[in-house]
């Protein structure tokens, strides 16, 4: 078999090439389908994806070829086919035969093998089609990506959006890194919070399909950062100290906490630990911790930790000693956070700045693509954004560009439909979009949008009739439907369009004007809902764990 090793290598090489070419055919085929689909569906970075698919095919083929090492029998059969006239396979079958004729046969085989260069006698036989087909398919797939499809504009917008999102993620990551190096005072916990916020942003970005989604994700991160900035670890620490000082069974604690002397503090805590061996004291401490957590408020960093400690202590899962240790750690953590709070706030402000820039960049994505399309192809810059039914200037200046462009797009789309006899547009309400250079916004009624961006407001720098443009930053929230407000007056709907002879239309007469609800920012109702939930929980017997769940739900909404 040693003499056959070069042949084995060559057969293996041939197999690997075949597998590779087959993998290329498969990946080429998938790429082609992807490229074809991308003409009708938004698939960002198609060329990159094709490269990735091809690369993955190559990698897989390399991996797969590891499992296709030619066996001994295959090598022997191949060797025989090169003119050895079944000498090798006979020798292989006679390997355990010690007869004289078997020995003679082996010698004859060896002689025959020595007399030829078996590896060079074996020519690689690979069908030329195996080279041509993948080359053609992959080239065709690439060429297909250059054909402007029905959604090429939208695809470009999505690609720009993804780029912007990636850029933002990277910028924030770098900023966090920079702040970590620049401000060593920032505690691990605070850094962790920043990183968590970044992870959340990344997750939301991954889910984002449109500009609105991306802006929403940015807004959420801004809110989160706002919350982080509002944290007052020093205040929390003081509240905790006060609470501990007032414990009737921990008299030494007050003095120790006042001086914050390490030794006296340790002694005080040791003494507290002993006191907590009494179950009554432990319950009292648990109650105190729960009360303290509530006093700290939802925005507090330690509120949740204290709540957890309280429930653990209350359910006797934690010994007094462990509880004391946990409180000590919490105090130490709070001190660390308090020390780095200023730097932390600065860091958050810097990240906020990045978010602001990202917002501007993401908001400008569709306009940029539209203008580049107009410039390059003379196409009308068609936005991918559908802003739903835009209704005037309830928040006038702030709705500004986004609503304006959304409205225009709808009209464009509807005009297209009108050609087929279905009428034009389905806009409701009234209001006017920004026109030309004047930029004046006017109108009335409630703004009804599907996204924060539609309904929220950007930094107001344009005069609006409905509301004075603000100079500060205003928050953006999801709009939710409030059934209690049903009955509010709405605007009449108009269906502009020209009925063609070829088309047909049906309509239903209703008894009176349609009553509709009202869309308000959910922040306005969140407090009411949360209050209602807290009251209900107080009234009813609900397990503490479930109460936590409800509280965390409302916290997550903020």
């Amino acid at each position, binding site marked *: 078999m040693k003499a056959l090793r070069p042949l084995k290598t060559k057969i293996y090489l041939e197999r690997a090439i075949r597998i590779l070419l087959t993998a290329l055919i498969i990946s080429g085929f998938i790429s082609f389908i992807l490229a074809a689909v991308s003409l009708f569906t938004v698939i960002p970075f198609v060329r990159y994806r094709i490269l990735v698919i091809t690369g993955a095919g190559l990698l897989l083929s390399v991996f797969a070829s590891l499992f296709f090492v030619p066996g001994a029998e295959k090598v022997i059969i191949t060797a025989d086919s090169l003119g050895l006239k*079944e*000498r090798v396979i006979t020798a292989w079958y006679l390997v355990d035969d010690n007869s004289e004729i078997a020995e003679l046969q082996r010698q004859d085989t060896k002689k025959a093998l020595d007399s030829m260069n078996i590896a060079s006698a074996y020519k690689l036989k690979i069908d030329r089609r195996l080279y041509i087909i993948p080359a053609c398919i992959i080239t065709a797939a690439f060429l297909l990506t250059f054909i402007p499809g029905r959604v090429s504009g939208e695809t470009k917008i999505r690609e720009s959006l993804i780029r912007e999102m990636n850029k933002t993620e990277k910028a924030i990551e770098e900023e966090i890194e920079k702040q970590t190096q620049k401000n060593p005072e920032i505690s691990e916990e605070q850094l962790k919070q920043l990183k968590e916020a970044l992870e959340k942003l990344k997750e939301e970005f991954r889910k984002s399909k449109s500009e609105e989604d991306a802006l929403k994700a940015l807004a959420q991160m801004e809110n989160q950062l706002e919350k982080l900035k509002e944290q007052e670890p020093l205040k929390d620490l003081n509240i905790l100290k006060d609470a501990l000082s007032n414990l009737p069974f921990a008299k030494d604690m007050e003095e120790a906490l006042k001086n914050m002397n390490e030794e006296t503090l340790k002694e005080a805590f040791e003494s507290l630990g002993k006191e907590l061996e009494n179950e009554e004291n432990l319950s009292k401490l648990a109650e105190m911790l729960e009360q303290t957590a509530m006093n700290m408020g939802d925005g507090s960093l330690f509120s949740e930790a204290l709540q957890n400690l309280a429930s653990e202590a209350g359910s006797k899962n934690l010994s007094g000693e462990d509880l004391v240790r946990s409180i000590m750690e919490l105090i130490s953590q709070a001190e660390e956070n308090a020390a780095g709070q200023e730097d932390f706030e600065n860091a958050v402000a810097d990240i906020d700045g990045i978010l602001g820039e990202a917002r501007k960049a993401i908001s400008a994505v569709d306009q940029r693509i539209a203008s580049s399309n107009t410039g390059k192809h003379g196409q009308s810059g068609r936005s991918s954004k559908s802003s739903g039914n835009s209704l005037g200037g309830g928040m006038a200046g702030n709705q500004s560009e986004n609503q304006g462009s959304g409205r225009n797009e709808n009209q464009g789309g509807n005009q297209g439909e009108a050609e087929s006899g279905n009428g034009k547009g389905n806009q409701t309400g009234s209001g006017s979009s920004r026109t030309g250079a004047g930029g004046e916004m006017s109108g009335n009624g409630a703004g009804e949008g599907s996204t924060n961006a539609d309904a929220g407001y950007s930094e107001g720098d344009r005069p609006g009739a409905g509301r004075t443009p603000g100079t500060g930053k205003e928050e953006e929230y999801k709009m939710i439907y409030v059934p209690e407000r049903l009955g509010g007056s709405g605007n009449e709907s108009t269906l502009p369009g020209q009925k063609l002879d070829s088309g047909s239309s049906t309509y239903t007469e209703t008894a009176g004007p349609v009553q509709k609800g009202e869309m308000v920012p959910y922040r306005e109702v969140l407090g009411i809902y949360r209050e209602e939930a807290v009251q209900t929980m107080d009234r009813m017997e609900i397990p503490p764990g479930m109460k936590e769940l409800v509280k965390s739900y409302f916290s997550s909404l903020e």
Partner: protein
Amino acid sequence: MQDEKSRFEDVLETVSRIETEVSRHMIGQKDIIRQVIMCMLAGGNVLLEGMPGLGKTRLVNILGKVMGLEFSRIQFTPDLMPADVTGTNIIDRKESGEGMFRFQPGPIFSNIVLADEINRATPKTQSAMLQAMQEKTVTVANTTYKLPEPFFVLATQNPIEMEGTYPLPEAQMDRFLFKLNVPSPGFDELKNIIRLTTGNREEAIETVTDAEEIIQIQKAAREIPIADPVLDYAIRIVVATRPEDGNSPEIVKKYVRYGSSPRGAQAIISTARIRALLCGRYNVSFEDIQTVAYPSLRHRIFVNFDAVSENVTPDMIIDGIIKDVKTYP
């Protein structure tokens, strides 16, 4: 080991000398000569079919002399009786006048029997050869006589003169290891034949071996190893001749009435071993199997009327089988 090698080398040398000596006196027909030698060394009988005057009888004559074997010739005619072939009991009268039956051996008691124009004898006489060809024995009047070793029957028949002939029965055909179609000589060969046979110069035929050595060669040939895949291939070829076999090729299903018996496989393997030895190899190859498949199977494949009407010969069918059956399935 050295002895073993020299034994096989001796075999090769002897075979080569036989082939050379026969070829010296027989112009052309190289393949036929080789195939007859292969068949004889495998211990089988040969049926030579060809037009008159192609040297069939001469070939057998020369082989007998070169191999140093006892040689007899039986000219088959319609009035030839079985006893004329096998021999008979005759009354042997002593001087005293007492008479007793004594077996008088027929011409079949010889190492090489030339059954010339075997298809001219009646089936009854042809059948007298069956036992001798298969079992190398002859039974006359309840007594079985062993034929000398080695024993070969080399029969000839003429494919065109069918009037007054009796085609050989399937059972007898099956007992021939090979059926060889003797081709007509080409121009140069014919020229040499004329020169050799029409002059006064007649070169003496040299005997290069003897019966004992032939038996040794036969034994040595049976030791040639054959790998399982090669053996399987030979068997698959034989099985493929049967139209009832599901895997047989279309040509077999369409034109074959009966396929080969197991003797076909035996013939292929035993002669393939000789061929390997003649080629200087100590193993049987697929090529050996393919080469010997034609003479081994062509008289064992019985074609149907469609084949006859469409001039499809057994060789064409074997061609189809060899193309269809893969060496490694």
